[in-house]
């Protein structure tokens, strides 16, 4: 863990008079799970957008594996090996898990047929099944439309899709917000499995117990800047809430 896989230094962005990010720093190491927490409006979503090329910055620098990078579109972020799983998951409800997983990146058939737009359904299906199995496989019906599946299964499809394309970093935006107990546990298990593959995970969540359960470090945002970074193993829910609301202010920054 010598070099951060992704590092942000002094990111700033204003929308008119509103300063969404103020000299915000962020860093994450390979194979690490970093939770990003903060109250509503603290700048979590803005930061994620800035990291993934969805938002132009007023100032600040991004480093990917130590190299200065300028990410100006989500495609560039994807090319670096980063994927975001948005809260709305961005899945097509009428398509099945395999079709969703490969949407926009279908494997063509070999030869002329492939050039005509025919797809290698068999290999896509096999790859999708491998991907779901890696995450603990709660998605089983490969032919059913996603729309008929549970929230947890949909989440897993979205995560599987992200990690099948991102080999460096996956950002999960509130992955457990709408899930029940069992499904939440599945998603948290999935995060551990992603981590075990050596992929770094940024987890945005409001749920402090979940954050402490899966994260290695917790970075707290308040008023558009990082107020503290805590080791999850040492932190308590009270500390996190304190940092979020400003009651503790920078006292916890020692960690």
């Amino acid at each position, binding site marked *: 863990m010598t070099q951060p896989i992704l590092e942000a230094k002094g990111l700033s962005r204003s929308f008119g008079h509103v300063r969404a990010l103020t000299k915000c720093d962020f860093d994450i190491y390979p194979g690490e799970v970093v939770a990003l927490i903060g109250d509503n409006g603290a700048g979590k979503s803005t930061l994620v957008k800035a990291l993934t090329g969805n938002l132009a910055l007023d100032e600040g620098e991004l480093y990917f594996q130590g190299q200065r990078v300028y990410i100006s579109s989500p495609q560039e972020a994807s090319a670096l090996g980063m994927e975001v799983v948005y809260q709305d998951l961005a*899945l097509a409800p009428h398509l099945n898990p395999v*079709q969703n997983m490969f949407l926009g*990146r279908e494997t063509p058939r070999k030869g002329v047929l492939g050039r005509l*737009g025919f797809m290698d359904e068999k290999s896509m299906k096999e790859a999708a099944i491998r991907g779901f199995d890696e995450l603990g496989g709660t998605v089983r019906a490969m032919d059913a439309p996603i729309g008929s599946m*549970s929230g947890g299964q949909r989440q897993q499809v979205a995560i599987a899709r992200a990690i099948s394309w991102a080999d460096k970093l996956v950002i999960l935006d509130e992955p457990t917000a709408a899930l029940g107990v069992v499904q939440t546990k599945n998603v948290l298990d999935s995060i551990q499995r992603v981590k075990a593959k050596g992929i770094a995970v940024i987890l945005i969540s409001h749920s402090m117990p979940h954050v402490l359960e899966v994260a290695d470090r917790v970075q707290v945002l308040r008023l558009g800047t990082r107020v503290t970074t805590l080791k999850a193993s040492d932190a308590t829910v009270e500390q996190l809430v304190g940092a979020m609301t400003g009651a503790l202010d920078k006292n916890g920054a020692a960690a």
Partner: protein
Amino acid sequence: MSVITPPEDVAVPDTHEGRDSVLKRLGNTQSVWILGVLLVIVAFFSIAAGGKFLSTGNFSLIAQNVAVWAVLGVGMTFVIITSGIDLSIGSVLVFSSVVAAKVMEQVGGDGWGTALIGILAALISGLAWGTINGFLVAKAKIPPLIVTLGTLSVALGLAQVITGGIDVRSVPTAMTDFNTFIKVLGIPSLPFVALIVLIIGGIVLHRTKFGRYTYAVGSNEEAARRVGVRVDRHLIRIYALSGTLAGFAATMSLAQFGTTTIAGQSLTNLNVIAAVVIGGTSIFGGEGSIFGTIVGLFIPAVLQAGFVIIGVQPFWQGVAVGSVLVAAVYVDQSRRASALRGASSTNPLRALLRRSK
């Protein structure tokens, strides 16, 4: 006797394979349901009218009535799956047939050379109208209903301007002979041309990336955009396809009637939309099949032919088709609603099959 079916999650441990059969996927769709309705209608008329209904002549007639609409139906199926609509097809057909007839009149002659130039002209005309539709829908973000309502009016108006409202009859005999004299199994050749278009359309929709993106755009446009599908370009292509097929249908119509049909296509768009929707293509997008469209096309055609044969006023066809349309969409919606509630086996037909095991 009933068998209690365990919940889906428990029932299928690790059996990813072998559940992808075409039959099963079809069984999940409304098209199978509606195929049942069609078979009931056919059975009814067969019993009521016997040999007269089941004759080659009758089926030849039905197939011919369906042929032009079938070609239009392919384009419409793609359009509706993207949750769009194309009201302009009838007018584009008229405009293209006028252009083709005028061009062939200028070229002169009765051979295939003239006919091919005419077909080309019709295709280009259809492609142009479709591209205009697509561009206005995808780039100008005008609702497809409005866009195609506009081009419906403009295309028909221009066709009337060009001809002064009088049908052009200069169709080379090569074209009209094609439908009159070339027969397969006693049925004129036009329906077979339509069948080829249907098969190609089905393959493109169900087997290629183009088809996959069509479903994706209709299912969740934003999701498609985020994974890099070029949604705008795809929509333009879809409407262009629909327009081009209307151009092709124009040449079929010329071959069938030997004249343009300026006043005869005012309800074509609605009839085709009805057929597509009856066939289970969801007006909300994301769902549909060419197979369903074929079935949906035959229901009105069979009804009409049947009513004539058993001596019922053919006007009843409208009554019957309208009722089937509303019933079909109702069934479709309740299916959708129960799917949202999370039930896995919601197709009544499947449930029925399962229960009777």
